[in-house]
């Protein structure tokens, strides 16, 4: 969806500027009783190796994402197995200079974390609904295959 349907992403988040793969992508292939891991690291890294791994049947186990809305920018890692969020860098918030500032900063941070969690929940819900539908078997799998080999 990141590469082929940013419009749909904007439907979920009207303020979305972009959602892109960040500086890390990990794929695993456990076919033939052997575990093969492909890790792609670095800013603006070429994802060709990842696409090749996907065509061979690998699955994404970890992804780093860069999410921008308006003037705000989030970066975070997401694990496939647990859906745990790691290394989340939030947009800048005001400093805590006095005890009175703390409540405001906590509320602001909570709002910013909620934005990321809301995005994950929305996209994951979309995926799950698609995954249990007939469309997944009849259309989506072949579309993904076609995209990965293009």
């Amino acid at each position, binding site marked *: 969806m990141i590469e082929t349907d940013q419009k749909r992403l904007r439907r979920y988040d009207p303020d979305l500027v972009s959602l892109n793969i960040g500086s890390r992508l990990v794929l695993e292939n456990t076919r033939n009783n052997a575990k093969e891991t492909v890790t792609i690291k670095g800013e603006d890294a070429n994802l060709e190796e990842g696409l090749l791994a996907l065509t061979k049947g690998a699955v994404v186990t970890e992804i780093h994402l860069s999410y921008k809305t308006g003037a705000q920018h989030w970066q975070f890692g997401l694990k496939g197995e647990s859906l745990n969020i790691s290394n989340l860098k939030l947009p800048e918030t005001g400093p805590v200079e006095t005890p009175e500032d703390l409540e405001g900063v906590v509320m602001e941070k909570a709002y910013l974390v909620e934005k990321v969690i809301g995005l994950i929940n929305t996209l*994951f*819900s979309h995926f799950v609904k698609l995954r249990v539908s007939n469309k997944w078997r009849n259309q989506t799998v072949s579309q993904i295959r076609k995209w990965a080999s293009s």
Partner: protein
Amino acid sequence: MGLLSSRISITRYKVSGQLDGSVHETVYHGLKQHAIPKIKDEGSEALVGWTSFEHPYAPDFEGYSFVFGTHMVFALRIDKKSISPKLVQKHYALEVAKHLEETGRNFLSGNEKKTIKEHVVKTLGRRIPAIPNVYDLLWDYQKSSLWFFSNLKSANEALETLFIKSFGLALIRLFPYTTADLVAGLSDQERDLLLKLGPSPSEE
């Protein structure tokens, strides 16, 4: 590892069930009852308890200081003693040498070695201070949602155990299946299909 860190890790939970009576009052009592002890327990290897977000080294929940708007924010603290195996090895060797000299023998039985090792670990444990680890959490009671700011397995397990002990509510970790089941808003029919899902042709 906390909400105010520059890089955050989050494990998400759904809180199962409701509290009886006033939420803030019940949580306050749970926190107070299971707060990290102020008195150092010299003998124990690890201490686990709640602490306050603002003052993690001097827990204080008075005046509902854990309430931030619609959220409750507090922290789990785990004070753990970590004795380097090399330090144990050194003191064990010294103790063994001393014991042999005192007894005039040139060997020790398996039981004697075990007793000396246990004594060394116990003595060092009393002398070495515990290292405090603080993990913040944010609980949105209305949404039955809890964010724990650590992905560490041991910290998450400690949280799950202490939470049910303190508040009588179970935490359900939101991993892909539980997220699909509890958050994705599936219909009953879709939920049945989810249970029967197998690898799709591309994953087989």
